[in-house]
């Protein structure tokens, strides 16, 4: 029946979603509660004294003014290089779409049922995407809890945009993981490749951001992390071309994974 795999996947995942969401929300809460402890002007002066490469490594671009605000502090402290932290959850979920079940052997039972491989994959993808939304909502609630508990003045809309912008980013990472896992077939190989993909993306983004105005700057454009810049989102709001890019690439990777999964053999 349509939706059975989706519902079962949510049932199997909701606890992890809550654990991850609560953990990340606690981090967000902590960062917001730390805001009153810092003098933002001193922070700006300090940041100006740093070489660009260091700033790039912690996710700060050329718009330093944004980081003298409370929102900017939260953006640096929590969202600055958060893509690396937030990459873990979608990687774990992406591995579950095919590689984990194949390695565990449960896919033999599932695929002997009257359901196509494509439907299994799409329903799982949607369920894990829903769990990503759940994690992000919990993170936002953590930020809001910090605002209420700490009495901190924050641009609620701006932080909501930075937070919910995570959804297309995390779904993109999950789609990439799923595609790599379908191609690699084995969990360990897939995990190694995905880790390499994320680390190389991080390095390319850092190089690109640090080498502004040089040829190396264009290298950063290759990295998906370049298209999640908390400071940029705070100042500009949702950057729809970037969101559309994440969505389009996710869809392309889902289609490629579906095609490959339908064609290839299921690992023993």
């Amino acid at each position, binding site marked *: 029946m349509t939706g059975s795999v989706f519902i079962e996947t949510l049932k199997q995942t909701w606890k992890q979603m809550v654990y991850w969401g609560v953990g990340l929300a606690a981090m967000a809460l902590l960062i917001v509660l730390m805001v009153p402890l810092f003098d933002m002007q001193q922070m700006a002066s300090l940041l100006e004294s740093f070489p660009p490469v260091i700033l790039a490594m912690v996710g700060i671009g050329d718009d330093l003014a944004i980081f003298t605000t409370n929102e900017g502090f939260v953006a640096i402290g929590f969202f600055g290089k958060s893509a690396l932290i937030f990459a873990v959850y979608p990687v774990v979920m992406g591995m579950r779409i095919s590689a984990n079940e194949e390695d565990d052997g449960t896919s033999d*039972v599932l*695929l002997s*049922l009257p359901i196509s491989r494509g439907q299994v994959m799409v329903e799982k993808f949607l369920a894990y995407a829903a769990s990503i939304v759940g994690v992000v909502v919990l993170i936002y609630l953590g930020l809001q809890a910090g605002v209420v508990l700490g009495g901190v003045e924050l641009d609620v809309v701006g932080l909501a945009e930075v937070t919910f912008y995570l959804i297309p980013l995390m779904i993109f990472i999950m789609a990439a993981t799923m595609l790599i896992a379908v191609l690699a077939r084995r969990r360990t190989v897939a995990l190694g490749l995905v880790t390499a993909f994320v680390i190389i993306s991080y390095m390319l983004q850092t190089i690109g951001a640090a080498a502004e105005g040089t040829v190396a700057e264009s290298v950063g454009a290759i990295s998906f992390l370049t298209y999640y810049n908390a400071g940029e989102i705070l100042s500009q709001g949702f950057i729809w071309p970037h969101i559309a890019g994440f969505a389009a690439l996710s869809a392309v990777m889902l289609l490629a994974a579906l095609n490959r999964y339908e064609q290839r053999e299921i690992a*023993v």
Partner: protein
Amino acid sequence: MASASIIEMRGLSKSYGSGAKQTVALSNLNLSVNRGEIFGYLGPNGAGKTTTIRLLLDLIRPSQGGATIFGMDVRADSVEIHRRIGFFPAELSLWEGRAGKQIIHYVASVRGDTRGIVKHADELAERLDLDTSKKVRDLSSGNKRKLGLVIAMMHSPELLILDEPTGGLDPLVQQSFHSMMDEYRDRGKTVFLSSHVLSEVQAICDRVGILRDGELKAVESVEKIMNVEFSWIDVTFRDAVPAGMQQKLGRMPSITDVSANGKVLRMRMVGDFDPLLRAISDGYVESLHIEEPTLEEIFLAYYSGDKEKR
């Protein structure tokens, strides 16, 4: 329609790798399984039994040839075929963190008829003495296999494909399983059962296919395959085995494997009895016991390739 074939394999072949590293898992398999029969698929580990079953389930793809189930192509019509079959894998893996009951509901919901299927699953679980409230990780391997059997049978499929289903089950449960298979046959359903438990195949199967090194060596009715030419003969002499008798029998072309145990000579014989009767007439024969070969012995005879012994 009683003899209409449910499974048809034509030239079904599967190999892995290429060139010098190519491994042939299954070679040119031609086999039909008829409606209403329990077909035993015998072979040692690595013979190609699981490969055949995974090909039938479209989990892997043939290198050559093809197969149909219910007249439909196993690849093109896999979803429709899977609706009408039940499957038990040899290496059964289920979702460890879920309770048996939850897995039953999950599988039933994918099959689209939760209420009826779950009710039947409960009946099967009761027959197999399975507690479905426990999580899979808390079940013994035998109970996991019971759960696997429930999942395979709970929708009363037209065709059951079972890969080594009874390993790890205690004898009482095996007996229940055998009864279930008999009931399946009585209801006109078909079972394709891979096993190396030959006594089980002997007890419940109608026909047997013997697979070795990816090649189908024989397909016979269990009755016929039991009716092979060799027999085990126990000759009991009244006093003692006459001197030189063991050696004399051992030289006869129709007799092999002669052993003495007290007053008894045991041997394996092919063909007519007359040469043996003449040879043992030197002694006073108290009794003569003729024993048909077991399926295990037939099985081994096929594997040894020792055709003259059959």
